[in-house]
């Protein structure tokens, strides 16, 4: 059952990620290349280690998923990469952004909106479910503190979670990032049931 769930979840994540990256390409006007897409089952307590450790400074864009079931979407960047994205989104020369201003937060939030909407639309199309993203929250802090937002909900019921980790980069630009999707048990069950129906 777990293998079937993982396989189905992996298929849906791939679909959603491809669509999300296409949306991001359109938004920034540069081709986005998916360098790696990895689906793993990891202890929740180790997720922040995947991003250089709990104290590593990071910028996170977080969205919750609601509708037929709940889940979480999180985009994580090193600060310098987030600033490079802001330059790209605002049409500023590379290196212009050196800190996270309200305008920069808004630009990254818009990026979260695009990725969330494209990702969930792809999954909704494939399953017939209704899944909506929340407005994005843009946060900058230690990676461990950012991941607490997700970990606390997942850890209620279990110690491990499926983690879909996509590494992507924009061709011709020094921008790359990690896009993480962590489903709740309810979301996984609902998705698999919808595909089986």
């Amino acid at each position, binding site marked *: 059952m777990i293998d079937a769930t993982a396989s189905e979840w992996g298929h849906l994540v791939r679909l959603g990620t491809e669509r999300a990256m296409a949306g991001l390409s359109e938004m920034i006007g540069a081709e986005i290349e998916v360098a790696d897409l990895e689906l793993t089952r990891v*202890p*929740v*307590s*180790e997720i*922040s280690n995947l991003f250089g*450790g*709990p*104290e590593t*400074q990071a910028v996170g864009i*977080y*969205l*919750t998923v609601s509708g037929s079931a709940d889940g979480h979407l999180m985009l994580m960047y090193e600060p310098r990469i987030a600033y490079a994205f802001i330059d790209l989104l605002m049409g500023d020369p590379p290196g212009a952004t050196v800190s996270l201003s309200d305008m920069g937060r808004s630009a990254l939030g818009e990026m979260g909106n695009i990725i969330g909407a494209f990702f969930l639309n792809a999954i909704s199309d494939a399953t017939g479910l209704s899944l909506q993203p*929340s*407005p994005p*929250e843009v*946060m*900058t*802090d*230690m*990676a*461990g*503190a*950012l*991941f*607490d*937002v997700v*970990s*606390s*909900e997942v*850890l*209620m*019921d*279990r*110690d491990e979670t499926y983690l879909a980790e996509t590494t992507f980069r924009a061709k011709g630009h020094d921008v790359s990032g990690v896009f993480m999707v962590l489903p709740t048990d309810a979301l996984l069950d609902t998705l698999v049931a919808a595909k089986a129906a």
Partner: protein
Amino acid sequence: MAVQGTESVTETTLSLGEWAVSADPTSVLACLGLGSCVAFIVYDATRHVGGMAHMVLPDSSMGRVTELTPAKFVDVAVPLVVERVLALGAMRHRLQVHLVGGARMLTGHADRMHIGERNVEAARQACRGLGIAITSEDVGGNTGRTVRLHVGTGELTLRGAGAPAARLAA
């Protein structure tokens, strides 16, 4: 490699839901990158015995305790760590108790559970239930924290995101 003028220390980093106690004067207990999670820290300065838990959720009625994360619920972790430091020779009336963390990482309506505030309140309640007074708190706000307890000295250091470490106690 030993460095002249410094003592070698062994740091135990507690991940989400983990706890530890120690009477080893060279040990350091640490919780790194706390957001909404709360570190519960106890120390007996006479016996040089300390304990720490990295607590994630306020109440065990919200889920289930597991082998991998026995200290994830505040109402389970606080009595557990207190019991274990007492077993190492600490005395209840001498315990210094510190709470660190419980930040509100989300500002918008995505913060549907208010976990940070609830963790802090649950920890205060658990301490009241055990009859132990809280010595210091560095809780709330909306930024991450790292805390370290040096068991040999009782020194407690706190570091915020992008900030240098500061001494909280001892």
